[in-house]
């Protein structure tokens, strides 16, 4: 187990290097001049431009720039934005908001999705089953910006059930509730369907028949024996989804004016702020890799047939 984790952590290094280099190269290749508009209507003075280019290593070729960046990163320095703000400060401010939103969305999708999946799975073909099947299909087919916009307009503006947007400063749980529901709604559909399919399949399995033959109650045979097996793929899905949500939700964040990493990356790309983009993405890649590792370890705990030796 220990060697497995060590091996996985070591594997993260090339992945992290590759991912950051790709992002770095893409930002490098973006057209436009970071100095444009820096000094108002006039072009910047030559001395300022030189100092600026020197500070951000803009005159070096790509590999040298990347090398210097990684060197700083290894020492925990994420660099500065072109406005002179530390990227690490920016991330420290925004990451908790994204994490909070992701956690809320995951909770919503897990609880509602699994309950819906179980209820429909044990009464396959019933009214509730068809209702959930159709409504999840609708949710899956509608793009998130439509759901987000509609939810904001009806639930927020028109009926006043939820705050319309997140006000500046701290994003409270209450303010993040509607965005979390919107963000979770898509995954609720997947979780519900995944749970249902697996449960229906496992209810026909030999070990559930054994459980009945052992004189267990129906509740125990289904709720423990069948469900325990059915939830293995569901929890894996939820884990990976959590990793993806921690990367920020650009659309949802911009609809609800949430100061998270998704919006931050989006704005940084538009202003060609390489340091911010690469810094944020590096953290995202790292978080994603760690979440992946945790999901894989969890998978081994849930299913003893999978060994990590």
């Amino acid at each position, binding site marked *: 187990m220990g060697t497995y984790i060590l091996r996985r952590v070591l594997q993260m290094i090339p992945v992290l290097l590759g991912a950051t280099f790709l992002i770095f190269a893409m930002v490098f290749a973006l057209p436009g001049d970071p100095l444009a508009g820096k000094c108002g209507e006039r072009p910047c003075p030559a001395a300022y431009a030189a100092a600026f280019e020197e500070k951000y290593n803009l005159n070096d070729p790509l590999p040298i720039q990347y090398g210097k960046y990684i060197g700083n990163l290894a020492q925990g320095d994420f660099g500065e934005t072109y406005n002179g703000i530390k990227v690490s400060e920016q991330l420290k401010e925004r990451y908790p908001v994204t994490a909070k939103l992701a956690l809320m969305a995951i909770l919503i999708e897990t609880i509602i999705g699994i309950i819906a999946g179980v209820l429909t799975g044990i009464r396959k073909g019933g009214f509730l089953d068809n209702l959930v099947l159709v409504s999840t299909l609708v949710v899956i087919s509608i793009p998130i910006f439509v759901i987000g916009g509609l939810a904001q307009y009806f639930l927020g503006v028109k009926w006043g059930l939820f705050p319309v947007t997140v006000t500046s400063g701290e994003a409270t749980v209450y303010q993040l509730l509607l965005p979390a529901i919107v963000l979770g709604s898509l995954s609720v559909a997947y979780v519900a369907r995944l749970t249902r399919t697996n449960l229906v399949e496992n209810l026909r399995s030999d070990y559930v028949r054994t459980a009945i*033959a052992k004189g267990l109650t129906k509740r125990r045979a289904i709720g423990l024996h069948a469900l325990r097996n059915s939830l293995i793929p569901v929890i894996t899905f939820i884990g990976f989804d959590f990793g993806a949500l921690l990367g920020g939700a650009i659309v949802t964040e911009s609809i609800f004016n949430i100061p998270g990493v998704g919006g931050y990356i989006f704005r940084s790309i538009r202003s060609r702020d390489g340091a911010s983009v690469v810094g944020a993405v590096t953290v995202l890649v790292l978080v994603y890799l760690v979440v992946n590792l945790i999901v894989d370890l969890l998978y081994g705990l849930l*299913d003893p047939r999978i060994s990590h030796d």
Partner: protein
Amino acid sequence: MTTQSTKTRSQGEFTYTPEDGRLLEVEDLYVEFHTADGVATAINGVSFELNQGESLAILGESGSGKSVTAQAIMGILDMPPAVIPQGHIRYCGQDLLTMDPEQRRKTRGPEVSMIFQDALSALNPVFPVGWQIAEMFRTHRGMNKSDALEQAVRLMERVQIPGARDRVKAYPHQFSGGMRQRIMIAVAIALDPAVLIADEPTTALDVTVQAQIMALLEELQEERQMGLILITHDLGVVADVADRIAVMYAGRLVEKAEVTDLYANPAHPYTRGLLESIPRLDQKGQTLAAIGGLPPNLMRIPPGCPFNPRCRMAQDVCRTDLPPLREVAPGRLSACHFAEEVIDA
């Protein structure tokens, strides 16, 4: 080998006392499967009984209804599609089919228990084997976790699993096929049931392991004086363990006899065909006798005797009249118009 020691068993407020050692009576049982393609009659008026300490083998090909019979007794048929339009399954005089579902659930395990063909899929892959055995004590006896696990270790030792105490926390996939079937047996005998149904317990195992498992079952049956129903298609497996044999074909009992009588002189052409199809060492190099044709489609069982299209002795009467199961010799039942001729042949 029947003993008449009558033990009274009680589960909660219910008491089960076999009368004259009679544990189980299946009477005129029908099971149908209602599918989109039509109704398949899997069991067609089957009757038999089982006494304390007795081994009854139910023999038949795939699709003959032997497993469905076992599942009907156990109450683990999927209903729907399965329907039991008529018949009785009496355990110690009480009809399991009309029993309150909760009361019947409580008979599964302490009264009637079952082991399955493929122990790998019949055991839950995500729980340790000891936990799965202990579950019997926790559910039915309300025992606490550590006591139940201690019982599980004892049972694993009883079914001769080496290093039982160290392996109680291991998972089914970490055992060999034979050891897994021993664990399945430990689960089934945990609460000392009066009736044990073994549905093809050795089919998924290799030959040497088959013999060990059968020996273990025989030993446990004698030790605990259980009534054993052994479902199999393997005549070789039956010979050593069973006292009586019931042969099934297309959902009907076609022959019922003491094991020695049946092997010596089968009273039904189907049984004779089965016996002739056993490979024998003294007939090396000869073509293996086989019963030609296939069992009938259960949605369209032919009129008359269901075996007539495959029977070498079939006459006109076989194609029109269904032969009833009748006594053809003392203690011997056969459903063949020409049973007497078959016995003498």
